[in-house]
């Protein structure tokens, strides 16, 4: 099989892992101001304290892997999205240190809580803008970005930014339903009852707006040609069914159900994005084969990835297993 295709799948997998894993802990940051100060907030924070660092490592794998396997794409996309990416990195700085700092300095806990929330919000919004900017097309001259300062800023990218904020918030609320109990659990269910409809609304809006983009990529062709057509036929049913299950889970289901079904909705959305973008790495401009690093690079890394990714998944799962169950107000018990 084609090395480049394998690497495209691996990078897509890393990005997907990042989106769902950092998605729920960024989502908790977004919801943070609505969570009452005191034991509820502590509980929400404690539920992700042992795992956020591992979750964010997938972002480093996505970035590092992109540079290694598709250096041309890395070299074009990152300068094109300079401002949102710098904003994302700074947002991640604030929210990352807040995990430690808020305990260390009760006098300024309000400040670090605000940093945790704003950092999460900015990072998420910037990631959503990044997605929108990629989908709407990036100007390429030769082997470099050829557009202007503000190309990334359009109504469409603002829509995708807001969509991702909604999506991560839903995932965060679902995580809280799973991992917490009592008042916070009830509160998270209330959040989710309006976040799920909001999520469906924004996904619908992005799905409708994408084919209308006046860019280079011809997204509708990909959806209405084999094998995209198969997915097009199944997708609405799969999405609708999962959303319905999620809704039931939020209303009165088992505590794990909303999170599991929200993951399902994310997976379906990501599959949809994959169909839109494949086989490009920069939609409409650069294919994965044009951006690919030499086979010597991809083969060398594949040996490591084939052995290490399963091991990583195993000990990551073990770490989640160690911190299984409800978190409680005083850390995991």
């Amino acid at each position, binding site marked *: 099989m084609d090395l480049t295709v394998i690497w495209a799948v691996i990078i897509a997998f890393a990005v997907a892992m990042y989106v769902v894993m950092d998605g729920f802990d960024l989502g908790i940051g977004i919801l943070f101001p609505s969570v009452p100060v005191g034991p509820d907030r502590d509980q929400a924070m404690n539920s992700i304290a042992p795992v956020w660092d591992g979750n964010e*490592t997938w972002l480093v*794998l996505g970035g590092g892997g992109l540079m290694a396997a598709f250096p041309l794409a890395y070299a074009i996309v990152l300068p094109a999205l300079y401002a949102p990416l710098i904003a994302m990195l700074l947002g991640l700085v604030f929210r990352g240190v807040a995990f430690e700092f808020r305990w260390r300095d009760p006098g300024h806990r309000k400040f670090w809580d605000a940093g945790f929330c704003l950092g999460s919000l900015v990072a998420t919004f910037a990631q959503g803008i990044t997605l929108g900017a990629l989908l709407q097309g990036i100007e390429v001259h030769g082997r470099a970005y050829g557009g202007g300062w503000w190309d990334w800023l359009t109504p469409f990218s603002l829509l995708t930014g807001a969509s991702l904020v909604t999506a991560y918030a839903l995932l965060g609320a679902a995580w809280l339903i799973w991992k917490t109990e009592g008042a916070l659990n009830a509160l998270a269910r209330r959040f989710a009852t309006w976040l799920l409809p909001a999520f469906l609304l924004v996904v619908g809006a992005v799905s409708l707006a994408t084919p209308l983009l006046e860019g280079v990529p011809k997204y509708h062709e990909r959806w209405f040609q084999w094998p995209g057509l198969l997915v097009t036929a199944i997708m609405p049913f799969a999405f609708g069914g999962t959303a319905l299950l999620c809704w039931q889970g939020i209303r009165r289901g088992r505590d794990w159900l909303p999170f599991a079904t929200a993951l399902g909705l994310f997976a379906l959305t990501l599959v949809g994005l994959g169909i839109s973008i494949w086989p490009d790495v920069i939609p409409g401009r650069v294919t994965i084969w044009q951006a690919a690093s030499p086979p010597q690079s991809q083969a060398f890394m594949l040996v490591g990835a084939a052995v290490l990714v399963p091991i990583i998944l195993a000990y990551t799962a073990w770490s989640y297993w160690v911190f299984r169950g409800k978190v409680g107000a005083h850390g995991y018990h």
Partner: protein
Amino acid sequence: MHDPDGIALILARAQFAFTISFHFIFPAFSIGLASYLAVLEGLWLKTGQEKYLNLFKYWLKIFAIGFAMGVVSGIVMSYQFGTNWSVFSDKAGPVIGPLMAYEVLTAFFLEAGFLGVMLFGMGRVGKKLHFAATLAVAVGTCISAFWILAANSWMQTPQGYAINAAGQFVPQSWPEIIFNPSFPYRLVHTVLAAYLTTALAVGGVAAWHHLKGRKTPEVKTMFSMAMWMAALVAPIQIFAGDQHGLNTHHYQPVKIMALEGHFQSHPEGAPLYLFGWPDQAAQTMRFPIAIPHLGSLLLEHDWNAPMRGLDTVPREDQPPAAIIFWSFRIMVGLGFLMFGLGLWSLLARWRKKLHDWTWLHRLALVMGPSGFVAVIAGWVTTEVGRQPWVVYGLLRTRDAVSPIGAPGVTGSLVAFVIVYFSVFAAGTWYMLKLMAHAPAAGETAPVSAPIRSAGITAAAAVEPDGKEPR
């Protein structure tokens, strides 16, 4: 890019230098501290002495803060290659990228995966499994150093590559790329530097409590351990540094010319300039204090060995001499001070006065942050000494930069400066606050929630009887 004055280039370089220098402080500390924590936990498991457990918990809280700052400043680095050095990423990505991908796969995930258990899991997994998690984190930090220094060393002494039609470096031999000529020296020198830095920081904290009269068994133990490290590692480090310098002299002679201030060639033996002001514009050393022939003796092991100077190197290929002349001297000077501290502590130990000599404690306190200064000075020496190249002799820094204009880089640089100074200053302050109280019996583990009324404190979770409360 339209950048006739090179302002955008200077700003991009300033931003990289700023963010990497800040970032480097944290791993330098966490590499050493993770190993120290593993040693402490191992000693506790082996001897059952409570003081080791108390020290472990004490430093674990400090480690958690430093590690978090290392993670967030590190994520910035992994993206900055693309945002600000896109041409470098395009051209060198096929070589540098896989090395960094291996760093993520073998080190970052390992550290992150076991950090949660190390910090919060003592009551949830057995003692041995917890120790395994601590070891995994410690090993992870060293693996991380391995890969990132392989990448950095390849940029200093590239080999094992070809260049394709698109101008990209194409890997030809991975063993040659990874084990490039400067790599073993840089790896040993850097990891030793991290250990020494941590030992001095631990020693400084212990010295502070000695001076304050808080000589708990924990304080005494950590001072003794730190001084052993200083006494043993400082001389090894001086030797390793000398070997690294000789390696650089062989593979990057221009860097050595600049950091020694050798503007002129010396056919009959070069002096060693102790001090002076390298004036690059005039291509001469001002106000030199020199020892004749010592330069040749140190670098060539021969009093009269002829040595070339920067007069044999075109001006556009010279690194900025004044910066690295001084950063090198700061590093070496501190290295010898560390050596002196180690010797003095041996004398005190021999005279059974290790915990009594206040002047020794005062020096150890002052030397507490010296490792960080030396690490940054050394890093500046090797990185600025690589200029004007980003891949030595092959790709110039000015040709590697992203097409981002000066206003954009100014904005991001200002943002980084403000955020880093405020956030990392706060973090450093919290670490200092933790260090300000002496480790003592009943030390608490890193707490997630500060209120622990329900009797499930992590401290209770590690009672020696091994019962694990739920």
